[in-house]
């Protein structure tokens, strides 16, 4: 035990923190994409895992083809938009339930990503090109600043877009599709639009991530949706705790990114505790479960059947005691 604790190196944790921040900011972009489908559109989109890897594959192959590392991110975004379009088409035109539509696209993207890369993974030729989103410790501050700028930019565009007539129609579609159609909104079109924008962001995140880690892997998106949900939910719980119930939409978006950062800090911390990397998916599930349960348990504390039963039992007991005492007095 003592040996274990003395083997933990606080300096190593300190050194790992900036990397966690950078990763959190990158995954935050993906979390913003997940937020759009999961929270705004009320659509559980499982395309996510596939489109993240798609973004990575397109970015790395673009760089290998000699395109500018910034331009390829635009290609990543566009590829994600197409993936969203496919899921939208499967769901709206072919009537496939949302979860299945997402899974079908996700699974087909696995093959497509293999085809794009030609093999299971491809590395960025670090010596030959200058990548701005790099994990190189010397330029990490630059990466963090740059990713932060991208995050803020996306939040601004996102906030503005959902405030427009078109964005309002998308929100209404997520909240009440019947009412939306009665008011002349083409709900299918809105769903497809939101899926496209969402998967575009997720693929962009995948593109930046592959530049950051220096390679793209066909499995890099595995479990991404859970990390996205973790970020959204951690963000919401923190937002409610810190800002309160009536939150500006931009603040909620910002907290989604913060959720991703918190998630990665936990990740870095647990790695530092020398947990085996293989157990990380288990850890992710536990973190998500804890944050999902927190608001529920909190409500249970103030209003639950078990609590009422206990309070009533206490009252009944007090009453019974009171009655026992009265005869003695008289």
């Amino acid at each position: 035990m003592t040996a274990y604790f003395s083997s933990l190196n606080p300096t190593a944790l300190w050194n790992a923190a900036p990397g966690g921040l950078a990763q959190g900011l990158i995954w935050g972009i993906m979390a913003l994409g997940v937020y759009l489908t999961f929270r705004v559109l009320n659509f559980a989109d499982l395309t996510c895992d596939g489109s993240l890897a798609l973004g990575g594959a397109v970015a790395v192959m673009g760089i290998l083809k000699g395109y500018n590392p910034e331009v390829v991110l635009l290609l990543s975004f566009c590829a994600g938009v197409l993936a969203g379009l496919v899921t939208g088409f499967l769901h709206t035109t072919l009537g496939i339930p949302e979860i299945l539509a997402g899974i079908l696209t996700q699974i087909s993207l696995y093959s497509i990503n293999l085809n794009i890369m030609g093999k299971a993974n491809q590395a960025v030729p670090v010596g030959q090109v200058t990548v701005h989103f790099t994990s190189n410790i010397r330029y990490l501050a630059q990466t963090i600043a740059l990713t932060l700028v991208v995050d803020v930019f996306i939040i601004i565009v996102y906030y503005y877009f959902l405030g427009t007539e078109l964005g309002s129609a998308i929100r209404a579609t997520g909240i009440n599709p019947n009412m939306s159609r009665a008011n002349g909104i083409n709900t299918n079109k809105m769903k497809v639009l939101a899926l496209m924008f969402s998967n575009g962001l997720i693929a962009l995140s995948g593109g930046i991530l592959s530049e950051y880690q220096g390679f793209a892997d066909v499995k890099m998106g595995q479990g991404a949706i859970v990390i996205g949900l973790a970020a959204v939910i951690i963000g919401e719980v923190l937002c409610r705790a810190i800002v309160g119930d009536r939150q500006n939409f931009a603040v909620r978006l910002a907290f989604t990114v913060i959720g991703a950062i918190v998630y990665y800090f936990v990740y870095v911390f647990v790695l530092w505790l020398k947990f085996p990397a293989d157990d990380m998916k288990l850890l992710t599930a536990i973190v998500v479960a804890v944050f999902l349960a927190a608001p529920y348990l909190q409500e249970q504390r103030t209003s639950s059947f078990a609590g009422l039963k206990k309070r009533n039992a206490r009252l009944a007991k007090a009453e019974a005691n009171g009655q026992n005492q009265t005869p003695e007095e008289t």
Partner: protein
Amino acid sequence: MLEIIDICKTFNPGTINEKVALENVSLTLKDGDFCTVIGGNGAGKSTVMNAVAGVWPVDSGRILVDGRDVSGLTEYQRAPYFGRVFQDPMTGTAADMWIEENLALASRRGKRRTLRWGVQKKEREEYRQLLRTLDLGLEDRMTTKVGLLSGGQRQALTLLMATLRKPKVLLLDEHTAALDPKTAEKVLETTDRIVGESGLTTLMVTHNMRDAIRHGNRLIMMNEGKIILDVSGEEKKNLTVRDLLQKFEETGGEVNDRMVLS
């Protein structure tokens, strides 16, 4: 003018759950007609509403609005012609959006939705004036989420949304059925006022025979997917609940408690 010509609809055809919901229903509403629709459960009242609104396509027949055939248009495509209020107060509004956002959504019914800001400053003032006419104090709660309003407030708001851009036909599908009697009365008053002010052509389904008699200038009764009674003018004014119940029993309809109690 709304013309319903010979529409039929069968649900689940060819299965044991087959149900003939509408059988050759025809109905013509002149401009400014306010027609109430009564009938027992499963008579086809709401089905007519949904057929007109385009929730699903009818099996046969045509629906014309001002002479234009809309029966081939989807629900959202024909939304510009119709204003709708539903039985469930939750259905007509987006609960998680503000009052002004809901109104702004409704005011763009039939318009292209662009990348301009969703609620313009000058429309906000217009909405405030409109909300004031409801006399519910909603004009001071423009940025309250609609989900926080009571059922009656939501129905009144939905009514406002349905008529914000003057519809060719206003479709009211038992819009007071989920409200307490006093609130229902108030919402009906508002309905009468709005319909009267703009001379809207209106189709109102109700379970309440007294309301059906008191409101509007025409009354139809449905049973088993057919129109079995169609009265208007003086004849309608002189109707009593007793007359309607008698008529209803003659055709073999089952009288349910809600109709008798009203």
